């Protein structure tokens, strides 16, 4: 009966209730939608950051990160392979790479790049390059003289498929070596800077150029589930000899993104509170009016022996009902709009270069996570209840005598 009373009370002035519910719903909707949109932006930054040869976890020679050179390669990849096969989940993928900085030139142009020796079969499944060949073919495993080039670099060098590029770098023995490679395929990446800075050759081609036998520079691992990253990172750290190898997760490798993620979360919370405050004034005002309208009623209830605490409870219940209806509507609206956007995404082509500047793709797909939705709901609900105490306490302060004078 108690809930029934509150429910009926809020519908006594249906117009007022509807307007305030609309205000709450719009607030919640905006928060849900914005969080999905920003989460989408962030995920796209993360995906792009990770897909450019980072992956979830990487294994390097322990000094490779301070000094990413050919000297710091891992000479016994077979040992690591055994560990990986034994400890990673079945559907985890990994790829081995040789990575050196090199100098590429043709008759007229030259530029500094990162040269990546890959195992085409492994690489295809793990990083962007396998799926992004727009012209020509991906590398064959046995191809010692083929190179994959980004579209932007190709344009800059005024060259095309089948032409040669000279790659120059320092080999395993410290000597400067150079060899001509033939362009087999052109890849496109989300970002122009990627296209300009990475050239891909086969592992055998790289070994040939660098005069090295077994060594590799890095192993990049992609796990089936993002949540596993930390656990497996630690596990690999334990199983591998830390005097020789270091294991890094993407959080170590992309500290900037990690920092962004942290900042984003706190920014969203601040924003929830800001929007809530704007909304809160409306909620307090409305419930306060609803209270003052019913001074006589509350006076009568008090005269009949109702405890002040009961009055507070009944007013709070009314606010909670309003909040809940508003929150539910807002969530529903938010989910519907995210669902509608999910298909085509939000196109930022207008700001293509800007999106690239922040490391994002041109099309953003909103991403709704349970966590984000729940935090929106928590913030609104608890702050909502909190501010409703004010009108509730005001209602409880009404005395029968005061009410009679009204």
């Amino acid at each position, binding site marked *: 009966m108690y809930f029934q009373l509150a429910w009926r009370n809020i519908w006594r002035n249906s*117009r*007022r209730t509807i*307007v*305030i519910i609309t*205000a709450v719903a*719009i*607030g919640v909707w*905006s928060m849900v939608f*914005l969080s999905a949109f*920003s989460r989408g*932006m962030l995920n796209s930054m993360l995906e792009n950051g990770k897909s450019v040869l980072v992956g979830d976890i990487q294994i390097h020679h322990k000094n490779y990160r*301070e000094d990413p*050179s050919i*000297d710091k390669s891992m000479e016994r990849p077979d040992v690591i392979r055994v560990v990986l096969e034994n400890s990673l989940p079945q559907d985890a993928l990994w790829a081995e790479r040789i990575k050196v*900085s*090199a*100098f*590429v030139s043709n*008759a*007229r*142009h*030259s*530029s*500094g*790049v990162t040269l990546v020796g890959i195992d085409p079969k492994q690489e295809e499944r793990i990083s962007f390059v396998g799926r992004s060949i727009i012209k020509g073919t991906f590398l064959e495993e046995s191809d010692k003289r083929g190179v994959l080039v980004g579209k932007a670099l190709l344009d*800059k060098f005024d060259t095309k498929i089948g032409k040669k590029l000279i790659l*120059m*770098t*320092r080999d395993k023995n*410290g000597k*400067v070596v150079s060899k001509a490679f033939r362009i087999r395929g052109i890849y496109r990446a989300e970002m122009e800077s990627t296209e300009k800075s990475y050239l891909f050759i086969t592992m055998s081609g790289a070994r040939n150029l660098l005069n090295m036998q077994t060594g590799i520079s890095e192993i990049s691992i992609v796990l089936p589930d993002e949540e596993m990253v930390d656990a497996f990172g630690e596990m690999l750290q334990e199983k591998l000899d830390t005097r020789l190898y270091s294991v890094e997760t993407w959080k170590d490798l992309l500290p*900037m993104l990690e*920092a*962004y993620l*942290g*900042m984003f979360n706190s920014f969203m919370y601040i*924003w929830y509170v*800001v*929007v809530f*405050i*704007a*909304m809160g*004034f*409306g*909620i*307090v*005002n*409305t419930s*306060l*009016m609803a209270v003052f*309208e019913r001074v006589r009623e509350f006076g009568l209830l008090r005269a009949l022996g109702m405890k002040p605490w009961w009055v507070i409870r009944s007013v709070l219940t009314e606010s909670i009902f309003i909040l809940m209806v508003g929150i539910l509507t807002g969530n529903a609206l938010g989910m519907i709009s995210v669902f509608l956007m999910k298909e085509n995404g939000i196109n*930022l082509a207008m*700001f*293509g*270069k*800007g*999106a*690239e*500047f*922040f490391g994002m793709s041109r099309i953003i797909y909103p991403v709704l996570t349970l966590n984000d939705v729940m935090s929106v709901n928590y913030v609104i609900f608890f702050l909502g209840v909190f501010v409703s105490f004010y009108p509730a306490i005001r209602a409880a302060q009404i005395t029968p005598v005061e009410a009679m004078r009204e």
Partner: protein
Amino acid sequence: MSTDIKMALRNIWRSPIRTMLTLSAIAFAALILVFMLSFQLGSYEAMVNSSVKIHTGHFQVQVKGYNEKQNMRFAISSPKDIAAKLDKIKKIQAYTFRANGFSLVSSENRTRGVLVTGIDPLGEASVSTIKTLVKKGGYLDKNDTDKALIGQLLAQHLKVSVNDELTILGQGKNGSIAAGIVTIKGIFSSGIDEFDRSSIQIPLNYFNDLFYMQGSVHEIVCTAASLYDVSNIVKELKKDLPDNQDGKEIVLLDWKELVPGLVQGIKLDLVSAMIFYAILIIVVAFSILNTFLMAILERTKEFGVMLALGVKPGRLLKLVMMESSFMTLVGVSIGGALGCLLTLWFQIHGINLESASEILKEYGMSGTVYPKLSFISAFAGPVAVLFITLCAALYPALKVKKLTPVEAINSV
């Protein structure tokens, strides 16, 4: 004071709590908008200035196509002629010549492909901050020849320090091989990793000999006193500058063209912030709409009596609109004023974003951000709030116009 104004003012204060709450909501929105907008504009300006000061300058004179392809042969063959034109424009604070060539730079046991830039030590110091960024060793002197400044990350990678030698191997302007040995004189750190990782600077004269430039340069980098002067200078200079020199088309590029990512990044950030602001304003508008609506529904009986006494519906509408306009105006002014004060305080003291310094560093900013109050940031937000709130007030006010005396008097 006319009766209407008096009535409106008294009506507003009939319910002080409600009025205060409504005022607070409006003021809060205005305050947040002033502050946030100032904060954004301030950090954009800092972003642009630091990126401009470290390397690109406010605008550059180049041969058409150089900026896209960085082809060595797209060089300005007689930079002195252009410099003479630049000298004529007083608003140009400083300019300098630069030439660039991709080269393989090697230390004793490391090699890396980097952009070697030839700079004029004196001119460079007046245009960019490079001189102040030298953390180890010293800056280049006027008469230095085979000396170099290198970025800190690059030095780390090459495992070199001051006084070590580097071998430069590149391609000269005419396609010949350019090879030379330089001694590191200084190591700089700008905080922008990309720059510190991939740049090495040598005296322009030496670069000229090494890369067979024959006195030509790739960029004439200019700075203006302020970011806001740039468009005027560019306009003025365009009239004066020759269209081509020795068959090569000369172009003027301002910072927006030199760092397109920065401009679009700012635009993107601004647009997404606008969406946030719009939503904030809508939410505020709804809570205010509610208050206004309630205030009027509560007084239906009163309006009925007034109508019965012969007050014209139009006058009632005016009265109600006056009440909401007063409230909105006061709210917006208070909020705007507080927002300005808050912004000014932080403008002086700065906002410490130590936790975000990793991110800020990437855009060339330090850990402290200074919001910047400007005409736009002070007024755009409050005006938007004012407009939307008045629109929200219109709906309840129009309801008043439809009232009939008898029905209104009989309503509860």
